[in-house]
Structure formats: C-alpha cells, structure tokens
C-alpha cells in the first residue's frame, strides 16, 4: 500500500517536532526539579552565611564569592587576550597557512576535555609557576578554557561590522589601529559582550579544572589574596552530594539551584542582548 507523500510528510514532521520537544524537556524538567526541591532552602541567610555544622547548616556564601572571584579573574585575562586575537584574525591576518593553524588551535582549545585542562593547570600554574593551589592558578586555567568562546564570538562581532565603515575611515586618513579602536570595536562591542557573558556562564559551572588548581572543601574565612584557595559553587555541590553524610536534600538542591540560576540568568541576558543587537542594527 503506497502512502501518499503528503501523509509521509505529516508523519515525519510530527516525529521531528516530538524530537525537538524531547530535547527541550530536560531543561524544563531539571529547572522544575531544582525549584521544587531547592527553593525551600533558599533564603537570605542561605546566600550570605558561612556553612556550619560540617556543611549541614548555614549558607553557601563562600562558595558564591569564590565562584565570583574565579569568574572575574578568568574573564579579566580571557577578554583582552581573546579580543586581541580576534582583532588579529579579522583585521590583520592574511589567508595563509599560519592563519589556518591558529584556527585549528582555537577549535582544539575548545575541544580539550575539562579534566585535561585541570592537569594542565596543575602542571603549569600550580607546580611550574609555583602559584600553588590558588585563585590565580584556577582563574588562569579557566581563562584559557574560556578563550575559544570569546575569540569565536568576538570574531563574529567584528566581521559583522560592514566593510564600508572601515573603508570610509581609512579613506579619511585614519590609521588602521585607530580605525579599529574608534570605529570597528565600538560597533562590535555588543557582540563581544554577548560572547563574554556566554564565556562567563561556562566558567562558572566548571568543576574538573578547579579540582586540582584551587578548590577547597572548607575555608573558614573568605580568601584574602589571589594566592589563597577558595570554595566554588560547582565543587561545593559535588562535595555536598558525595562527601558529606546526612545533608538535607534541600541544601543540595538549593546549591544546585543557585548555580543553575546564575548560569541561566547569564545566558538569558546574553540571548536578549543578542536579539536586541540584531533588531537594532542600523545597517
């Protein structure tokens, strides 16, 4: 019995639609579970207090602060490095073998497993540079991890600035670097911003790279210098869910909720900024 192509199409499209929904369901599901089980634990005290009673009570303040430190440290290094690299690739590089190598390198940095970054951070920053297990080592490791994201989105942002802008500026006698600095960059800024936000959200959630380079189980006080260790939200969640016995589930889910909440918030902001740019484009 031959089925009409139109019916085949209807069946196919329905199946595909179901697949798409299946893919999105986990996002909704996870968020729902975290909210249902974690929300009871969230309170002002939870967010601003130090942990007590072996992590079974009190708050997760040091973990939040630690994550913030690491994230700021990482973006502080990755952003200038990444944007400059993107500028090189878009504005200066010629299409030769070297450029291909750089692009391959970027793709590879993006693909390196997170635990390998941890090993690398251990070998280079903790041991070789002798920073020890510290915020410095952790941030630098995370920065290199973040680099591909920043470079790729900065590249796109720079490339989306029309050639005519550059040509007009150069025609007026402005030098190349000045053109970049005063004409191209400002117009690419929103796109770069979006990329940074996405990079930050990735950095905030990583556990493996900080396992060997910075994470501490319990610190009674906030870190005082970049050579100190710090606690971090992803590692704290790992510890709460595997190392500490008899933790109230609400505390674990609450920690996860704070982490996911932070990450989702960053991503949604990035998505909105990106949509805003696209609609506001004057060219």
């Amino acid at each position, binding site marked *: 019995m031959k089925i009409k192509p139109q019916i085949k199409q209807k069946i196919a499209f329905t199946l595909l639609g179901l697949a798409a929904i299946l893919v999105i369901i986990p996002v909704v599901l996870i968020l729902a579970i975290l909210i249902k089980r974690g929300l009871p634990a969230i309170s002002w005290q939870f967010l601003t207090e130090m942990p007590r009673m072996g992590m079974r009570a009190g708050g997760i303040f040091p973990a939040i602060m630690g994550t913030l430190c690491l994230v700021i440290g990482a973006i502080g290094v990755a952003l200038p490095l990444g944007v400059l690299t993107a500028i090189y690739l878009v504005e200066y590089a010629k299409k030769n073998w070297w450029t291909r190598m750089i692009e391959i390198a970027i793709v590879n940095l993006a693909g390196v497993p997170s635990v390998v970054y941890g090993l690398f951070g251990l070998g280079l920053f903790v041991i070789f540079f002798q920073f020890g297990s510290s*915020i410095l080592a952790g941030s630098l490791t995370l920065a290199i991890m973040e680099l591909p994201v920043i470079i790729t989105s900065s590249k796109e942002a720079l490339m989306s600035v029309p050639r005519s802008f550059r040509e007009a500026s150069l025609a007026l006698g402005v030098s190349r670097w000045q053109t970049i600095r005063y004409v191209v960059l400002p117009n690419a800024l929103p796109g770069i911003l979006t990329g940074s936000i996405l990079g930050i959200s990735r950095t905030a959630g990583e556990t493996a790279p900080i396992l060997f380079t910075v994470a501490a189980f319990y610190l009674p006080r906030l870190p005082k210098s970049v050579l100190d*260790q710090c606690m971090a939200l992803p590692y704290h969640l790992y510890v709460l869910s595997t190392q500490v016995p008899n933790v109230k589930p609400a505390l674990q889910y609450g920690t996860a909720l704070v982490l996911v909440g932070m990450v989702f918030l960053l991503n949604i902001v990035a998505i909105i900024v990106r949509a805003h740019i696209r609609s506001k484009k004057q060219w």
Partner: protein
Amino acid sequence: MKTKLLLSGILAVAVLFCTNFLVFAKENENSIQIKGSDTMVNLGQAWAEEFMIENPQTSIAVTGGGSGTGVAALINGTCDIAETSREMKPRELELARKNGHDAQEFKVAIDALAVVVHPSNPVKQLTFDQLSGIFTGKITNWNEVGGNDQKILALSRDRNSGTHVYFLEHILRKGNDKGPEQFAPEVLMLPSSQAIIDEVSQSQSAIGYIGLGYVSPAVKAVAVSKANEGPFVLPSLDTAMNKTYPVARPLLFYTGREPQGTVKSFIDFVLSKKGQEIVRTMDFVPLGDKA
C-alpha cells in the same frame, strides 16, 4: 553612550572587588592548612570550627581529596597537617624526608569500618576470609556465604581513599600489605562513603564498607570476625573502643615537623577531653581513656 556608562560601571565594581585581592599575603602564622582523608574531613572541620570559636584569631582551612591527597600535600609542603585514615608508607616517609619534612605521626581518633548490606539481606555475619573472597571476586554469589541466590554487587571507595587502602591491606590481603590480592575489576569504585550508602540502601545484593559514622538506618551492618570460627562482633562505639571489633583503624594526623605554635595548640585541643568529645559526636571512636 549608555553602553559606555554601563561598561565603566561594571569595570569600577570589578576593580573595587579585586583590590581586596591584590595583596599577595604572606603565610599567616595563625593559619593552618589541613588536607587529606575524606573520612576525616568532617571531623577535621568540626574540630576546626570549635577551635576557631575558642581562638578567634586563628584560621583553619580543611580540604579533602583522600588520605593520599593529604600525604602528597605533606610531601610537597603544601599543608601543615595531613589527616589520614591509614599509615604513611615507608616510601612516602622517605619522599617526605627527601623534601625536608620529617613526618610526625599523631593518633587522634579511631574509626570502625562497618561492612554494610541491604536491610533485607539475610546474611548477618562474615569472616575476613569471606570478605576477602567477595571483594577479590572469588566469591560471586550470596548463596556461597549463606544468603540468597543472587550475584553479589561489591562496592568500594575509590583508590584515593585511605579507607580503600586500609580495607585492601587488612581485609583483602589479611594484614600482608604487599600481598597479591586486588579488588576485582567488577567492584564499583564510588567517589564517597555517602555514595556507597546510597547504593547499598537501594540494592538488595549490594555490599560495601564505610566508616562507622556514616551508618544510617537505611543500611544494615554485618558482624565481622577475623577468625573463621568467630567471635562475630557488630561494629559500635563500644566494641571499637574495647577493641573487640576487628576492623578498627586509627585516624592520624601527620605534620611535617615537630608541631609548634598554632599547630601545636590545635593538636593539643584535638587530643583533649573536649576534642575527643567532638570525636564522639561526629560518630567516630574516641581514643579511649586509660581507665
């Protein structure tokens, strides 16, 4: 224009934030870095919390990762106290000495290792031989040790754990730490005692070993005997303290040199009556009075 303002605002906040951290602080004499056993990490933290309440100018940081992590840190000089649930090996002591750290050992508490099974498991007692057989893979079915006809699911801590090493040397290898016995490849290596409890409580054919402090009503502890004829003893605070329970091990502190200053006060505190009381509340076994 607005973007510029926003960006400068963010930049200003970040700079203010970071200025707090631009100090490359030198090592504080009043701070102690403790690293090591995951079994002991909660105990270490409880001690630290109490000690810091009594001595507010001190600061004690506790990190887990396993006894091996602590020993490695001691050898590398990156901690003041290594907490371990096993003794340092001669090789490790040698490495420490080579790095200029003359390791000092302090017994600070006792931990009984409980062998746990699902509450519905009919098996109530096991000998060292049987345990060794189960975890080396020689015994694979519960009916070989008096239970149901079910394949045994053996659970262990992962290799970075002193608990793992202690169990390996004293149960599997029956005290001969260089023996050939190994955990069978089929044995699941779980990242923590908590994970072992979770699995055992959900699986009727599971068996695992955890610190006494982790035992909860969700699992059942098995009576253990060193010799094949008995006596079979259930793990408890009393049997561990009076040494009738055969799977009890000392929990140790190692320092890189003769303890001084804050480290010495801390160790004194840990060994004091108050410190040992904390041991009891954390479900470990105090060192026991000479009485």
